[in-house]
């Protein structure tokens, strides 16, 4: 089963991150790299991405067949989607276990969403 793990940051987590020393931030990146590496080794990771700053996002509105991209209202939102992990594992319990080990999880909000599949029945 595939699960999407969504990582949200909030003003507090942002502040904590920004107040870290460069060495602490480097250690943070290393922790993510090691975590990603570990999930690759178990064969559970499908893809993971970190998202750029919300101020760079566009919202696309299609009305009357015309697409109108605008700067998203995201920058004002308190909770920001910061990154995703798409994993494949045997149960949601395992996905939750993975999510809980996300570096920095103490300060972030992490959601686990099951992904729909095309098989006709569930295993």
């Amino acid at each position, binding site marked *: *089963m595939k699960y999407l793990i969504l990582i949200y940051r909030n003003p507090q987590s942002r502040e904590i991150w920004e107040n870290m020393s460069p060495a602490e931030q480097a250690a943070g990146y290393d922790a993510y790299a090691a975590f990603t590496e570990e999930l*690759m*080794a*178990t*064969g*559970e*990771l*499908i*893809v993971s991405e970190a998202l750029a700053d919300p101020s760079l996002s566009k919202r696309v509105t299609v009305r009357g067949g015309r697409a109108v991209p605008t700067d998203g209202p995201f920058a004002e939102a308190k909770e920001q989607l910061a990154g995703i992990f798409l994993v*494949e*594992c*045997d149960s949601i319990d395992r996905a939750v276990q993975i999510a809980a080990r996300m570096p920095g999880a103490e300060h972030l909000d992490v959601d686990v969403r*099951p*992904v*729909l*599949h*095309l*098989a*006709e*029945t*569930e*295993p």
Partner: protein
Amino acid sequence: MTGGYEVERLLRELAPQVLGILVRRFDGFDICEDAVQEALLAAALQWPREGVPDNPKGWLVTVATRRRTEMWRADTARRRRELSAAALAAPQPEPAPSIDDTLTLLLLCCHPSLTTASQVALTLRAVGGLTTAEIARAFLMPEATVAQRISRAKQRIKGSGAGFHLPPPDQLATRVSAALRVLYLIFNEGYTASSGPALHRVELSTEAIRLTRQLQKQRPADGEVAGLLALMLLTDARRPARTGPDGTLVPLAEQDRGLWDGAAIAEGVALITHALAATPVGPYQLQAAIAAVHDEAARADDTDWRQILALYDLLNRVEPGPMVTLNRIVAIAMVEGPAAGLRQLLAHESDPVLAGHYRVDAVRAHLLELAGDHEGARAHYERAAVRTLSLPERRYLRSRASRLVTTGPGPAARVATRPE
């Protein structure tokens, strides 16, 4: 491209044999597997254009051996400083043994140190001869992810110290049953509606049947192997009738049975009949027997539900599980009436394995529909639709719900469930 399909079939057939020969000759399952994959890719490009060589297996062994030597040299050069000079001498090729290593390969790919997803990917590539790209398309995954999964899985096998030989006799049964589980997973994954992205999907269920058939030839006395093959054939036989023109699922009771594949049914019935008579009973055999009872009914109303119930009783003893419990309840409803089924459902729904499962709602909806309670049925179909993770199943459950809205209360509907 008249030869394309034939070439593909031939390559998949030869893939595990060639890999077996290489591993026996050179050792080092991981590099040999990569080398064979490259030889297969080369053949897939060359053979349809230039014709199949007189000795296709020999051609693949030669090309794979050459690639393996190149890879081995590159690898060795990298590690030269770490390795003793003795390791630099290429091993002497030995004549190919005539034994079939496909079973050894399959069991290695389903090694207990691997996650299920890795077992599936590695089996399809090393035993099934599929390319990484084909596997990625079949599972809707990036090719790089599958490639990495396969190479990590091979490292893991290497790390576990598992050699290229059959497990000791006392472990063989467990290891074969792990392989059966992987094959059944592949089969079910492939058992999808033939629409949309399915266009370019490798027929995983066909592939699973082929590999199980191969396994059955090597383990003819194993009743569970025969049982699984029979189960796949008897299920796959209904495929032409399983989806409507709009791609939605057609439940068993409403399928046009004239579309079922009679040859597959006959083969499945023969297999399961023989297995049940000649070998100790097991869960795959029982599921196959249930599928056979369904397949042998000329009309849904002719289904021998008493026999199905008896088989579920047995299955419940041999290998209990949530699906067995629920399907058994449906069988009870069909034999004793929906009220009896609903009573059983009430008694079981708080079992820890069933609590919160969308299938409980789906079964309750079905039984309520049979009992004529359309309002209740609709609500439970909706609840089940929200909770399932299967897209085709969700569509199916929604359509049942909306059908009850449009027809309104009326005479009890026909049997409309999908337990199989």
